[in-house]
Structure formats: structure tokens, C-alpha cells
């Protein structure tokens, strides 16, 4: 009955620790260090690391960049809303913006090519959730995140918004095509 009574010894710091605890602490510490070093290891040897390249921006700055790409590389329009489908050249800078409640525009990429994807929000915070790949990133207004992506499987992908952004949140759905 001592967990809620003062320790039995005035100087409890010097009471020797049992072997069982010492062994467990040693094992646990090794595991903690392994987990810690996995992260820098993956930065060097892994292929999925989030870029830390980002810039402060504004909707007035970011919007025109997106529009310039759309004007130059639109190949067709889809749906009643005439959402542009943009097929920029492999290796180029590509843009997607989040706004209430759209991911804009639709991108058409080539499999195995690397692109510099710029993401930002025009209004509130949004969540870029590429499905069914399940890559998820926070999209914050005022900040432009730039990351290199290499789509490695052809197909049609959804971009779900997974940061709550108001009543129309569930209608905020974008698309990325990856061609062979």
C-alpha cells in the first residue's frame, strides 16, 4: 500500500533497481533509438520524404500562376462546370489550388515522370488527400508548398479534401490522371 504513501526510505534514490527493470529499460531504449534513427535514415535512403520547400504567398500571387499553366496546357474540359484538364510537360512546375470547394484544375501527368507540384489555398485550410494512394498533406492559405512527385502507377486518382472547410467540405473533390 505505498503508491499513495510516501516512499518507505527517506533516500529512495539510492535504493537499487531490480534487474528486471534494468533489462527492460535497456531493451526499450534500444528500440527508441532505432525508431529515432529510422527517420534520418529514410531521408537518405527512402523515396517518400516530404519536401520542406515552401514560400509565403497570397491568393493574388498564386492564382495567376495557376491560370498561366491552365492557359498554356489545357487539353480538354470535363463535367458541366467545364473544369480544365491540364497536361503540362514532364518535369515542369505544376499547380493545384484549393478553394471552397474545389481542387483546381484537373492535372494529367505521365507515369514515371517527376513534376514540381505547387499547392496552396485561396481561402481556408484544406487537406490534400490523394486517393487511393493515400498521400495526405496540409494546405495552408498564405503558404505555397512545392514538392517533387513521381506518379508511378497509371490510373485515375481522386483528390479528397481532408481538412474540414465548411458546409460544402464533402463536395471538394479533385482529380489527377496518370497516363502510361
Amino acid at each position, binding site marked *: *500500500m*505505498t*503508491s*499513495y*504513501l*510516501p*516512499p*518507505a*526510505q*527517506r533516500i*529512495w534514490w539510492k*535504493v*537499487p533497481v*531490480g*534487474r*528486471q*527493470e534494468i533489462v*527492460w*529499460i535497456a531493451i*526499450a531504449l534500444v*528500440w527508441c533509438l532505432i*525508431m529515432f534513427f*529510422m*527517420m*534520418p535514415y*529514410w*531521408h537518405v535512403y527512402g523515396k517518400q*520524404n*516530404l519536401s*520542406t*520547400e515552401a514560400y509565403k504567398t497570397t491568393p493574388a500571387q498564386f492564382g495567376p500562376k495557376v491560370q498561366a499553366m491552365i492557359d498554356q496546357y489545357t487539353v480538354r474540359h470535363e463535367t458541366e462546370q467545364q*473544369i480544365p484538364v491540364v497536361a503540362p510537360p514532364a518535369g515542369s512546375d505544376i499547380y493545384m489550388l484549393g478553394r471552397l470547394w474545389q481542387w483546381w484544375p484537373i492535372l494529367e501527368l505521365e507515369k514515371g515522370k517527376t513534376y514540381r507540384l505547387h499547392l496552396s489555398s485561396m481561402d*481556408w*485550410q484544406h*487537406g490534400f*488527400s*490523394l486517393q487511393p494512394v*493515400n*498521400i*495526405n*498533406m*496540409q*494546405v495552408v*492559405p*498564405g*503558404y505555397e508548398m512545392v*514538392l517533387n*512527385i*513521381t506518379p*508511378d*502507377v497509371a490510373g485515375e486518382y*481522386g483528390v479528397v479534401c*481532408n481538412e*474540414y472547410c*465548411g*458546409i*460544402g*467540405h*464533402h463536395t471538394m*473533390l479533385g482529380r489527377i490522371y496518370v497516363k502510361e
Partner: protein
Amino acid sequence: MGNFRLCPDSGLFFDKNAESLMKVNAVAAAVSLLVAGLLALGVALTRWPAVHLLPADQFYMYLTAHGVDALLFWIIFFEIAVLYFASSTLLRCRLAAPRWAWLGFALMVIGAITTNVAIFQGNSSVMMTSYVPMQAAPSFYLGLILFAVGALIGCFVFFGTLVIAKNENTYEGSIPLVTFGAMTAAIIAVFTIASGAIILVPTYLWSIGYIAHIDPSMYRIIWWAMGHSSQQINVVAHVSIWYLVGGLLLGARPMSEKVSRFAFLLYILFLQLASAHHILVDPGISAEWKIFNTSYAMYLAVLASLIHGLTVPGSMEVAQREKGYNRGMFEWLRKAPWGNPTFSSVAISIVIFGFIGGITGVVMGTEQINLIIHNTIYVPAHFHATVAVGTTLTFMGLTYLLIPVLFRRQMILPTLAKWQPYLFGAGMTILILFMMGAGTLGVSRRHWDMDFTGAALSFEYSGMAYTMMGIAGIGAVLAVIAGGAFLLITVGSLLVGKKLDASAGLLQSFGVPLAPEAYNAEPEILPMAAAVEEHGSAGFEAPGTFILAMLLLVSFVVYYFINWKYLSSVWPLS
């Protein structure tokens, strides 16, 4: 005279002021839990795709209130009661500054009501996180600020009581381990509340038009210093209660004061850094900051949790073996009081918190792995394992203990109480496992409609994702029923349970002290624990626990690397 009463059942001394404050805080906590549980039902039945109960606006309103009531109000009211218990009651000391404590309580109540009213008026469905620039009504932030100030006062009443106890020599030697754990929780609470003030005060001023702009990235960093640390208070509080319940029910004593207190010190130093778990996929933050903070500086707070994971059940095993349950590896466990709801609550809480909550938390808090988990419904799966089972079920278990001891009522419906922790644990575990599965399949959290009705484009989740969300809904309903049973038993006991002492009538359940003649005790100085044999044996004192701990570690390692494997299969990013 006499401000203390001796509880004849537990041998605990209660200061009159502290006793009343513990009661009112516990009752406010229970009311918050009731609201949170009712809202949970609406949320769960909406996310169950085949039911899809609420319209979108109500769903987001319910979800906002569920988060605030369950994650802040229920838990922090209860924790203030725990702080007063761990200081005044366990140290046999009068409570410091009782008037301030009452003021703190009043502010917390006013704050909780203000924020709830703001949410239910409908213009503050901003989720608990209230990420700017989405704006809630000013009273939403104001209520949270008032609540936080009240809780801060509670923390300083706790520290003040520690000082009085030391100055007045109400105990011999060092403070008990449970009080030390509560102090750790209070320290983390001070950081939590200060961070909350730093971010919520400007946000409130922004909502009434005094400030033009709040930077959303800065908001996220500082808000999470509050939002995540507030859940770390829970971890520390429920670990302390695990030690308390082990001592009260089984006579367990710490395997080593040094090891357990050192583990709490690691919490003080490093636990709060994990607020970075929420910032891992934000733009522009360096990998160095992310790795250092998300790993609690080399996982030293995880080390602390792994230590408690061994020493809490280990101390119970040692105590059981001393009682003669010594056969084989696990007789001590089989012969544990599984029919006592306090014990079963704590036992289930330890297992689910460790095996699911702890492991998922570390995995999703790994810098790169967070990419495949951030903002999916895996995240609420994780924190239901930590907060709803780890903390909430532990608090439920302690409440069963407090009904006779603190409120002096006999518990009603003992058979229902016996089964309640199992039903709650089972329902929650179903909810958690299937939300984890659905999250792995990409299903989003905080999302009204996984069919995307009304969207210009379309996307279909796999059939399995729908099945999993449905089963999760069933688990949630079971857990809500069990939560209802808990409230029925506890509130029913306070209202109609047999009175165990000279009573001040029904009002004693809501903070009024017992009849004056109950307060006739003058506590003696709290003695040191009886020195039994020296610890530090060369053999393994708790071999069964060691096997269970190794099982935990193996599950941890396997699950950790499964997630790296899964990460390696997604599109390359750099």
C-alpha cells in the same frame, strides 16, 4: 472544529473544502461526458454510411461540440478533482486557497457553458481545432479562455497545497508517487494552458475585429501546443491513477520509486514536444524540427511510457504473488479481481492504451509515415484508444471507487457495473480497429459524406472501406450504450444509493459536505510506507509482466515496420 473526516472504508482523510470541490468537479465532468456521449451517437450514426443520420450542418456542429466536451471539458473537470485528491487527500493537508479554487471552478463552468452555447447557436461549427482563417463566434473562443483560466487556477491551488503540506509537515519524507504523477500532470497543464492563452486570446481579438490577421501556420503550431499537450495531461493523469488503483485494490507498491519517478521526469521534459505530430505535413517546416520534436527528443517520453507499461502491471504482479498467487506465469493475473469494475476498467485501459493507443501514436507520429495517415479517420481511431479507453475508462473506474469513498453512497446496479467496463472496452475496440482500417484505406476524418454527394467529380472508396465504417458505427453504438450505463449507475447511486454516513441529504451529491458531525477527525502525519523487503532483487520479480511487455514490444516492432513497408509503396515524393 475539525475540517477533516476519516473515511472508514478507505482510511483516507478528506478536507471539507477539497471534498466539496472534488464532488462538484466530478459532477461537472459527468455532465460533460453525458453531452459528449449523446453527441457521439449523432456523429457515429452519421459516419455509418448505411445510416447517415444527420444533415451536414448538424453533423459538423455535433462533431465540434463532441470534441470540445469530450476532449476538454469532461477530462479537465475530472482532472481538477484528481489534482485536489492527489494533493489534499493523499497528503492529509487542507486545500490551499479554497476561495480561489471555487472561483476557478466557476470560471470553468461559465466557460464550458459559453462555448457550448456558441456551438449550438450554429455559427461556430469550426471543429475543436478552430483553424484560422475559418472563424467562430467570439463567445466560442471566450468560453475556452475562461475555462482555461479556471483550470489554471486549479493547477496553482494544487501547487499551493503541495507547499502547505511541506511547510506544515503533514507527511514524512517525499510525496507519494501518485501525488508526484499528479504534479507532472499539473506541470504539463500549465504549459498547455499558457499556450492556449497565447493563441486563443489573439484569436478572440481577431474574431471581434481588433486584430486583422492571424497567420494560419503559426496558429497551427501554437494551438497544437495546447491541443496535443492537453491530451498529454490525460496520459500522465491516467498513469498516476493506474498506480493509485494498483495500490488501493491490490496493495501494490512501486517496484522502484526511482524508476517510476524518473519516468515521470522524462514526461516533464519531453512529452509536450509531441505537439509536432500535427505539423508533420505542413508547408515549410524543416525536417530537423520535425524529427526532434515528433520523437519527443529521441523517443524519451515513449521510453517513459514503456517503463510505466512494465512497472504498473509489474507492481500488481508482485503484490499478487505476495498474496500467494504464485503458480506459473499468470496465476496472479487470473486471480485478479476481474469482477471489480474499478480493476477491470484499469486493466482494459492499460491493455488498449498500450497495445493500440501507444503503438498507433508512435507510428503515425513518425515523420514520414504521417504522410499516409494525416487527417484520415485513423487519427481519431488512435486518440479514441488513448483518450476514450486510456483516460476515460480509467476515470470511470476511479469514479466507481469514489462513489462510496467520496460521496458516501452505496453503488446501485452492481451487476451492470461489473459488465460496464467490458462493454465499453469492447465497443471502443471495435470502433478503433475498424476506423484504423478505414483510415488505412484513405477514409477522411471530419467528413460528412464518403460518397461525395453533390461534388462535380466523383471518387469511390473501396467496398471494404464502407464495411469498416459500418462496423465502426456498431462499435460506437455499443460504447455509447456502455457510457450511458456508466452514467446511469453513477448518477443513480448519487441520487438514490443508500447513504453510508450521517448525511446532509441529497445535496451532498452535488458538493455540499456531509453532516457536520462527520468532520471530527484530525489527521495524523502521513507516515512513510511500511518498509518491506528491499527491492533490487537479482531475479525477475514479475516474470509474467515481463512476458506481456515483450509481447507489446514485438507487436510494436512488427506494426512499425509494416507501416514503413506500406509507405514505401506509395508515389515517390521529395
